[in-house]
């Protein structure tokens, strides 16, 4: 399988730094603004883009991402519109990998085969589906691999050495290490433990390991990027969107609020290895 993901990690590694993986919610705060944010991300320093598929019941997300999803749904976001965002992005950018991230039900209702065909055609490189553990691989993971789309698995502090092989078995693209037992946007309490966990996972796989959950600032990015191949930031970006709104609507400052934050995070990953 060839997606844009391995090439992008190689490029970052050649530059001697971890990749910056940014998460934005499709359709937040409205479709046009979300599209503008998406298209501004690569120039601001995002190496890989996670595009959130909004869901009414995001059980693993904290208030920041929950609210972003609710804004998107209130603005009328649908799965078709999310896929169309990727398609439009691809007309301008052929290289930056896009990973769709969310929950299973909207995909299940769209229809597995129809979704995978549409996602591949739109230029999606990978999927992260929070509520599909390896025990449910027949549902989407295996069909996605067959369709040429990476299925990126979450590994967590509760994934011990005995379980890691099962988690890594059908994982491709990269491994997303969840820095804590908790929901998105919570705070990392033990940074050293995260580094040790990344090292442990790398002992089991050649795939790049990205650390996410709880990374908010350039300093966090620099610190967490030391041991990993990439860092993922989501809640901070959703909160930046929120902070730019007036009466719940986008303002002239909304796109800039995101690009400024991402540029700062990018400076963080650039000094991650240098500081090591």
């Amino acid at each position: 399988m060839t997606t844009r993901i391995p090439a992008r990690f190689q490029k970052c590694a050649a530059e001697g730094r971890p990749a910056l993986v940014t998460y934005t919610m499709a359709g937040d705060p409205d479709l046009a603004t979300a599209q503008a944010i998406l298209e501004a991300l690569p120039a601001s320093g995002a190496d890989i883009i996670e595009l959130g598929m909004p869901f009414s019941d995001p059980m693993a997300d904290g208030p920041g991402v929950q609210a972003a999803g609710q804004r998107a749904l209130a603005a009328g976001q649908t799965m078709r519109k999310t896929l169309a965002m990727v398609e439009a992005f691809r007309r301008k950018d052929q290289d930056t990998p896009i990973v769709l991230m969310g929950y299973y039900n909207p995909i299940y209702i769209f229809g597995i085969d129809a979704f995978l065909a549409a996602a591949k055609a739109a230029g999606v490189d990978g999927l992260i589906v929070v509520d599909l553990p390896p025990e449910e691989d027949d549902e989407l993971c295996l069909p996605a691999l067959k369709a040429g789309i990476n299925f990126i698995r979450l590994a967590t502090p509760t994934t011990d050495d005995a379980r890691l092989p099962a988690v890594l078995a059908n994982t491709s693209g990269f491994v997303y290490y969840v820095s804590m037992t908790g929901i998105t946007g919570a705070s990392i309490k033990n940074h050293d433990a995260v580094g040790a966990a990344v090292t442990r996972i790398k002992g089991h796989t050649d795939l790049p390991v990205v650390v996410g959950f709880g990374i908010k600032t350039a300093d966090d990015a620099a610190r967490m990027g030391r041991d990993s191949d990439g860092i993922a930031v989501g809640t901070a970006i959703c909160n930046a969107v929120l902070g730019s709104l007036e009466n719940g609507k986008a303002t002239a400052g909304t796109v800039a609020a995101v690009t400024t934050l991402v540029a700062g995070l990018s400076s963080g990953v650039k000094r991650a290895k240098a500081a090591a």
Partner: protein
Amino acid sequence: MTATGANSLRNGPDEQGRFGLYGGRFVAETLMPLILDLEKAYRAAQADPEFQAQIKHLATHYVGRPSPLYFAERLTEHLGGAKVYFKREELNHTGSHKINNTLGQILLAKRMGKTRISAETGAGQHGVATATVCAKFDLPCVVFMGATDVERQYPNVLRMKMLGAEVRPVTAGAGTLKDAMNEALRDWVTNVETTYYLIGTAAGPHPYPEMVRNFQSVIGEEIKAQMRDETGKLPDAVVACVGGGSNAIGTFHAFLDDSSVKLYGAEAGGHGIEVDNGHAASMTGGRPGVLHGNRTYLLQDADGQILEGHSISAGLDYPGVGPEHSYLHDTRRVTYAPITDKEALEAFQLCTKLEGIIPALESAHGLAQLMKVAPTMQKDETIVLCLSGRGDKDVESVGRYLGMNS
């Protein structure tokens, strides 16, 4: 004896936790190792005579089992059809069937060495039953409850607090059971090492649907034995209300292979099944999807977003249903039918006036279904309702609906 051959409907779930298409383990990786541990611990407990003896002892001396089977004479006369019996689960300690499950699970939590209990609740009956066993077994307890439900079931909030539980109102969404369950799952992901999540209904990821069903199956087993003593035969029909469906599956399970026994589940029809998002009848008005760890019938829009639903009854106000019910719906072994708010209120009043029993609004849905079926049956036939809870918690809100508070 009941057949348990290859064609038995009582064999589910399979090793993947599936009842046909339904069930499964659709949870975040953080929870997956714990769910596998839970299954192991539950299998060990099932095989341990000491565990079974503990449950039996507490059921007798703490809960008050067996609960009586009561011949509702005036209601039978009023309906003019089959003889009507109530399985009096509302007489259990804490006032509903919920304690059957919380006792079993708290003993399991103890065996697993967990030090903190969390739960979600709709009507508050499960919250009270959880707070009760936490008081008895000296474990800290956090109950997540939708803010709307906190308001409409306030007596139960006070009971939980007095029992020492912390009640966390959930304001997300419509502030009902679905939102409480989301928040309970977020809490569990955060506190997975210490916390036992004590699910109140026969839903969620495997092994919860199976485990909760087994703890509740005592209801149907007792009905079977009590009817044999009373009439010398099986009942002709059995009725229960279905939200998540724990009292219903506990009532039905013993009868699944007895094909002469007709089984009826009453879903929450709210303002009417034809009203968009105005009901909580997931099987009559929804379609299969994945939420809260399992695949099951769900109320959802064309894009797979979950709807809030509506019911006058906080305990039935949930957009999903336990996966085994979805399976029994597809196989048509159980007939699921919607009961409107209005029909439930009428049944609530009739039961109160004719039998001197104030039923929970949830159970009143089952009664309304019984009131449709019993008159079509012969006078020498019998029909049993699982009277799953008492209505003390509902008197304030029913009084308001009936204009009695002014």
